């Protein structure tokens, strides 16, 4: 059986786990290509106006997969713990896609810890739907989970290696689906690297640790995916020279979170880049370049004081 995975949103978080689990259960995995102009345009056509650019891009990827696989995997995720939640998009997407693309077939799993629907229960149902025994599913789930953990540890240690470099260090605070998207974050990251800046990614440090650390900045934030990335600010505070918030227009949770952080954080230069499908590169480059000028000058001054 061929399972399609849209290269958007949660793909960037769970791709290792999904591929491992599905292939273990004898499925073939088809992933849509990097986001390009055509995927973006299609996504926009299949979305309502108010949808954020990241979710619009997701729709474009789903559309690309139709006809190229038997089922498209879209999880329905509601919470990872009591008292936390995620953006409604993540529990609506499966249903949105079913009604937007009636010709396609989808498979789903539900995660909602607040209502005792754990990740294992979710994967058990997924395995059942794919015709695997519970025993086989359990083994595949544990292997997949383990592979993801190993992969995350490698990314963490790669990022930690950068801590001692002499270059300017900028922390990108954004969701992985924005940071690594070919049309959203990638051009920005590439531009920063061309300016000789070491880029730290908020999504890389350990998730549970980051959720705990997010409490330093806000005790009442309840969006799980925002807690994960906000924690990285306290985590890297002492080594970074600046923070770039990267958000897609019009993301609800991010617009509130970033506004809160801009007011609360003191002493670290910050800037907020809001991107959508119409963002021109020229304006972005001007903003990034002048931001890097600011932190470079600040660092130079700081070094002079110390030296």
């Amino acid at each position, binding site marked *: 059986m061929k399972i399609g995975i849209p290269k958007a949103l949660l793909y960037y978080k769970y791709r290792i786990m999904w591929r491992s689990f599905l292939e273990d259960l004898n499925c073939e995995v088809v992933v849509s290509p990097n986001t390009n102009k055509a995927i973006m345009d299609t996504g926009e056509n299949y979305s309502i106006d108010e949808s954020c650019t990241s979710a619009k891009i997701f729709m474009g990827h789903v559309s690309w997969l139709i006809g190229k696989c038997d089922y498209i995997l879209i999880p329905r995720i509601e919470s990872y713990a009591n008292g936390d939640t995620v953006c409604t998009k993540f529990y609506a997407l499966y249903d949105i896609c079913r009604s937007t693309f009636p010709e396609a077939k989808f498979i789903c799993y539900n995660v909602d810890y607040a209502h005792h629907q754990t990740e294992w229960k979710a994967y058990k149902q997924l395995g059942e739907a794919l015709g695997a025994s519970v025993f086989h599913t359990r083994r595949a789930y544990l292997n997949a989970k383990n592979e993801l953990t190993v992969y995350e540890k490698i990314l963490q240690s790669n990022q930690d290696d950068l801590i001692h470099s002499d270059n300017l260090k900028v922390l990108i605070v954004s969701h992985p689906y924005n940071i690594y998207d070919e049309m959203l974050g990638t051009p920005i990251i590439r531009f920063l690297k061309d300016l000789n800046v070491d880029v730290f990614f908020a999504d890389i440090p350990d998730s549970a640790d980051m959720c705990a650390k997010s409490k330093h900045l806000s005790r009442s934030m309840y969006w799980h995916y925002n807690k994960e990335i906000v924690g990285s600010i306290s985590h890297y505070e002492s080594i970074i020279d600046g923070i770039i918030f990267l958000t897609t227009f019009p993301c609800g949770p991010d617009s509130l979170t970033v506004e809160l952080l801009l007011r609360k954080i003191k002493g670290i230069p910050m800037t907020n880049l809001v991107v959508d499908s119409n963002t021109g590169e020229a304006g972005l480059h*001007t903003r990034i370049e*002048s931001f890097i*000028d*600011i932190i470079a*000058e600040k660092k130079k001054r700081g070094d002079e004081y110390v030296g």
Partner: protein
Amino acid sequence: MKAYLGVDIGSISTKGVVVDDKAQILAHEYLWTEGNPIHAVKRVIDALQKQIDGKDIQVKAVGTTGSARKLIGVVLGAQTVKNEITAHAIGTMSRVPDVRTIFEIGGQDSKIIILEDGIVTDYAMNTLCAAGTGSFLMSQAKRLGLAIEELGEMALKSQNPTRIAARCTVFAESDLVHKAQIGHKKEDIVAGICNAVVSNYLNNVGKGKRIAAPIVFQGGVSKNVGVVRAFEQVTGSDVYVDEFGHLMGALGVAVLAKQSGKEQNFDFNIQHVEFITKGTECKKCANNCEIIHVYRGEDVLDSWGNRCERGVSA
């Protein structure tokens, strides 16, 4: 004498200065871009050459800034290509060394730059909306049957400025029509517009920024004394408007070109060389990047706009 050339190519106007090694202005020019940056720069170069003609001046380095900085940087063979925020800050500091806040309101954009101990610590630009910029003043002047140059003086006459909703240009406009219809005096309305520009600017671009004196106000709107007075009233401190305020970007990038330490004699005859740009759409993948090639005669000087290597040879 060694000199340095700075060119600031905005969407509306193109500015050029030649400075000596103490950042004193030897020649300057300001003219409309008219949608053709290359031609505008040639005219600027021509005017600057005439101003320094016969003097013992050799331009040793060139800097470009403004939205066409990359294109013109290639055309002029610039040593320094810098964003306009840094350029404006450097230029202003060469005139007012202890400046802490720079307000800038241009034809369609506005920005604020905050400095501390001679370095930029924060900045903001207007993003989505041109409310409260020069084009808003222009259209309101027209509506009231006034020339844009008259607005400032007229606003100063007002004893009792009309309150005009400043949040959004569209609402400000309908509010203004309403106030005129119920009998507010013209000078009060004009003063109200100036106040609206200021509160709009401070609420949007200046939101959350700590505004400290000395304050320098630049951009086309700084020529409007009514707006200057409104800024002084709101901030409670003097607002300094430089006679060369419109040249700060060009001045700053000339200083940066000098600081780059790279020197090469600049040839003013470049104004007679033919430069052509060609836009092509790369067909090699679904992104359809629009790639710009800059030609000097038959030779390609530079190309950009491609998102990946495949576009390089397109």
